[in-house]
């Protein structure tokens, strides 16, 4: 029987697992989260297995398939131990060479090393790479150290130690006090103090309480929760069990969206393994405390990330929010006190218990503690998931970690907080990233999306994109959100299509006011943020669209014209051949012309012209 009957047996098991492992033995680590698999990490893993099976005679070469290592753009990543040599973007064809050269002989394969796009410098080890240098991976750090499908791996790195500590005689109140003092705030977007929430739930009237985990990450371009669940599911589970003990719940749910099959698979495996070891179920570690978690699949509606909609969805009804003047910690799932935290929040809990609130509260700013995982995407050189301490400036994130803007383009803005967030302009690049500062700037922390935009991004178009997303993703229950977004979209569409008129901005502001003040849930009250923040920082761009019928970023097709610079055109006919609607006329070696009436403004000629002779105005 595997069941761990007391905290000591966990420690014994850990020691046994650690002593069985020899760190000097060669070990191949291959990252294979969803992002890795999108880059054929599955095939790479298969080739590794085949190649290694051929070499059983040599033996002793370990292979660990892990979750995402954050550098999504360069997945799949292979790290070869004990030297810790780092190869990004590994292809199946590279496998044989990695084994024969690096693993067996210890040689570094130069062509596979990481080249920093900004400096052109080559790096051998992960910790040297600028992308990783400024990060502080407290949550994410263990991903590389464990196979998410193995509870033994998790236990070997100290996993479930926090739970054992808690169940070795800590009072629930004491735990809540630690979490409160740590300053941990909800990572789902709201930033509500976690300990205070736990305390309210513990004190709420009622016998049955629920502990819930929100894994319905829906922001476009944000996937940190997915990667945590895929790469280290036990850390989330451990957090939930500790939370349940502190709150007095014996039942929990994790709400995972349907689009995250791998995360669900890994979490289900984690649940099964935890039950086998007696870490879930009745009488955990002989403490008398019992708890179990069920997995609830979401259909992928963005609104189901909203707490009440999520609970309604778990109840089996249509996921629509309801008024929560009475908080969900008092009346939540099935009207019972329910404590809902986000994946990342739960994953923070074991850390705080293990290392103490004093340690945790030293990280971050005055009111925002700890680290935060962001998904850094958009026009930066290095995209991926980054875990940084709160209070880091946007400049550090974008230039030091992100490696600056791609190409020779100029930074324009960074969008944070997902569809409910806003854009932050260049003038605020030195803004420290924490809950308060971002809100003051008209954006929000949200769940941690960070989309970097350059001069080629039209801000009206960006606002339209988010409004369109929300128009579709709003549940449609309340009037201001549903109809307000419809009308906002119409106005923005008019502006980008050249039908903008005087008073449009004022109408947008009126709509924003009524939406943010009268909407039923946070989706509606924050839905106007992308519009308001773009008006606030890029109002001129709106005015140019409306008054001059011009799109400075050349994005809004109705407002741009393509023509050929006669001086630069060499008459190479490349554009002429590529034009899908034959709008370009001309003979070789003579200046070509674009017929504006046929041109569909697809931009292919602009992209293919080697002489910059195609001009967009």
């Amino acid at each position, binding site marked *: 029987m595997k069941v761990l009957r007391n905290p000591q047996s966990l420690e014994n098991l850990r020691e046994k697992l650690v002593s069985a492992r020899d760190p000097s033995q060669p070990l191949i680590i291959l990252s294979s989260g969803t992002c890795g698999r999108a880059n054929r990490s599955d095939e790479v893993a298969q080739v590794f297995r085949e190649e290694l099976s051929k070499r059983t005679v040599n033996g002793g070469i370990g292979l660990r398939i892990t979750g995402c290592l954050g550098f999504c753009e360069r997945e799949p990543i292979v790290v070869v131990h004990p030297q810790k040599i780092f190869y990004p973007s590994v292809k199946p064809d590279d496998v044989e060479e990695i084994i024969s050269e690096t693993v067996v002989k210890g040689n570094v394969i130069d062509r596979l090393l990481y080249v920093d796009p900004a400096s052109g410098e080559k790096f051998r080890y992960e910790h040297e790479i600028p992308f990783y240098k400024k990060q502080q991976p407290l949550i994410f750090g263990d991903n590389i150290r464990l196979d998410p499908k193995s509870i033994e791996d998790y236990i070997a790195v100290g996993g479930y130690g926090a739970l054992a500590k808690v169940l070795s005689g800590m009072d629930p109140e004491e735990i809540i006090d630690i979490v409160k003092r740590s300053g941990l705030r909800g990572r789902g977007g709201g930033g509500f103090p976690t300990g205070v929430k736990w305390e309210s739930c513990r004190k709420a009237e009622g016998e049955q309480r629920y502990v819930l985990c929100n894994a319905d990450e829906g922001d476009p371009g944000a996937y940190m929760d997915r990667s945590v669940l895929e790469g280290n599911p036990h850390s989330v589970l451990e957090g939930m069990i500790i939370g349940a003990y502190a709150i007095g719940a014996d039942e929990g749910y994790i709400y995972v969206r349907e689009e995250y099959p791998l995360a669900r698979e890994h979490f289900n495996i984690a649940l099964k393994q935890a039950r086998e070891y007696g870490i879930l179920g009745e009488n955990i570690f002989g403490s008398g405390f019992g708890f179990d978690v069920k997995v609830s699949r979401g259909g992928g509606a963005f609104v189901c990330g909203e707490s009440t909609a999520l609970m309604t969805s778990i109840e089996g009804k249509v996921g629509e929010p309801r008024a929560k003047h009475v908080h969900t910690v008092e009346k939540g799932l099935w009207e019972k006190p329910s404590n809902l935290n986000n994946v990342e929040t739960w994953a923070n809990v074991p850390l705080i218990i293990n290392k103490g609130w004093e340690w945790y509260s030293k990280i971050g700013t005055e009111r925002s503690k700890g680290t935060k995982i962001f998904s850094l995407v958009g026009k930066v050189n290095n995209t991926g998931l980054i875990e940084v301490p709160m209070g880091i400036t946007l400049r550090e994130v974008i230039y030091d970690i992100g490696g600056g803007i791609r190409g020779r383009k100029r930074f324009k803005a960074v969008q944070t907080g997902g569809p409910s967030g806003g854009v932050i302009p260049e003038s605020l690049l030195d803004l420290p990233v924490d809950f308060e500062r971002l809100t003051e700037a008209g954006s929000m922390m949200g769940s941690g999306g960070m989309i970097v935009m350059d001069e080629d991004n039209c801000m009206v178009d960006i606002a339209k994109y988010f409004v369109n997303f929300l128009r579709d993703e709003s549940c449609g229950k309340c*009037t201001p959100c549903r109809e307000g977004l419809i009308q906002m979209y119409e106005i923005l569409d008019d502006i980008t299509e050249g039908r903008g008129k005087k008073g449009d901005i004022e109408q947008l502001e009126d709509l924003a006011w009524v939406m943010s003040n009268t909407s039923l849930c946070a989706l509606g009250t924050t839905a106007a943020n992308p519009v308001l923040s773009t008006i606030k920082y890029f109002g001129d761009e709106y005015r140019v669209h409306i008054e001059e019928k011009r799109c400075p970023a050349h994005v809004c097709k109705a407002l741009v014209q393509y023509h050929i610079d006669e001086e630069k055109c060499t008459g190479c006919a490349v554009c002429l051949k590529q034009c899908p609607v034959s709008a370009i006329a001309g003979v070789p070696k003579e200046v070509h012309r674009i017929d504006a009436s046929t041109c569909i403004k697809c931009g292919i000629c602009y992209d293919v012209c080697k002489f910059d002779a195609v001009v967009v105005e």
Partner: protein
Amino acid sequence: MEKLIIDGIETEPDPSKTVLEVAQELGIHIPTLCYHRSLSPYGACRICTVEIIWRGRSRLRTACTYPAWEGEVKTNSEPVRGARKLLLELMLAEAPASVEIQELAREYGVEQSRFKVGDEKKDNRCIQCGLCVRMCEDVMGVSALGHKNRGYRRSVTTPFDRESDVCTTCGACEFICPTGAITVKQITDRPVTRIASEFELGLKERPCIYVPFPQAVPNKPVIDRDHCMFFQNDACRICEAVCQPQAIDYKQEEKIVDEEVGAIVVATGYELFPLEQIGEYGSGRYKNVITGLQFERLLSASGPTAGEVRRPSDWAIPKEVVFVSCVGSREPELYKPYCSKICCMYTLKHAMLYKHRVPDGQPYVFYIDVRAGGKGYEEFYQRGIEEDGVLYLRGKVSKIFEEDGKVVVWGVDTLTGKKVEIAADMAVLASAIVPSEDAKELANKLKMAIDEHGFMTEAHPKLRPVESLTFAVYLAGCAQAPKDIPEAVAQASGAASKVVALFSEEELHHEPTIATVDEDLCSGCGVCVSVCPYDAREHDPEKHVAKVNEVLCEGCGSCIAACPSSACQLVNFKDCQIFEMLKAAMSEKGS
């Protein structure tokens, strides 16, 4: 404890209620669209937005969902009006065809929305408040409706967008929709059960809970159990939810009331001979062929058309109306041989009132002869013909049928001998007066005699016209025979006087002619007990003979005729006395 102040009115906070409920109790009006008392608060339309000021912070919240905690509430402040105005602009762009939304918007100074109305929305009335869906699911327990899609594509529909076979056609969705956006027809092909109002003689519908008629005594609603969703399906209970004094009691049962009385006046009234039985006039199939009583409802200010003369098929104003007298009356071969007595005058009244309401209309009256035998009746008749131009045609109507939306009346003018055909908009039939359906049963219970037509028989046609043959049971009105209002009132007054006279005496007088039993002859066979219509006979088990209850005995003689041993005799009319009388009479004659 801190107070809750709504628009300056102080009240006790009560978190078990919402701000909306407390405001309504205080008589403060807050507009609502997605709210209904029988449903739990939903908070979708947001029109009930109010300003909540608590601890110095002002926020807009919906009154229908916000608990009545302590603090200050402003229901009509500047930001509140501003928010409602914008919401209404949005709704107006969403549901431009809804009159209700247009009116509400106007209250907030919005005539025209600034926002775009999509082409697909031009005829839309739905504001997605979800009342119909919640009503169907939460209250009726049916789920024949639901929302599909989300966001800007959200709409209300039936399961799988198909004609719904789960719909019970209860109509609650149509009833509750605040913007007139939904009808049962949109949901199911099955016909909707409409309940015809009994009082309006089928000219109007009525709900399951209704006041039987205006000025009903007591003026209280009743529940129609045969149609009520609660009694039929254990659902609904809306009336219970909306009744603020909580007067709805589903456990009420019909009761039998026992009263001891000294006299009974039978005034069971009349009914009309059913048109269904008159085949030549369409057997009641034609909507625009109605009875005089139905026409009376059309003329009534509290009737289905609020007093305007309109025909039932399309509620158009009829330009030609044919009135037919003696329908079923004075027809010994087929229907009733008697004259219904009131039809001549009410038909005339109807024709005249019709002419007054529809001055360019033409009334025709088919008659056998006009019986205007009452004070002022003849003058009234002359006025109708001369002043109001009612056209009287002497003759019977042979057939009535519908053709091209017209009511075609075939008749004959016996004065000219010509056939007459009128294509009218409506026909009003003066159907014969017949006794109430259950009058016969009552007559049996009261041991009263009825005639061949079912009218109650008076004790004597000339000398005792208000009394029945049963002691202390009197007659009034059409229970006895067709009669008009003055006559009915006169008879009722007479009956009442008789009751007063009866009650004013110290002792009850009774006819001395009653039955007796010669105990020596009586064998105790009990035949007399079974034949006595007044329960005046009983069996004496000790003596084993029959007895007579002298108060109950009316001296009818049934027992005397039935007694096999001639033990029963009528006091003062014993056989021997009769024979002696006969003998004396014969001898006188002989002498």
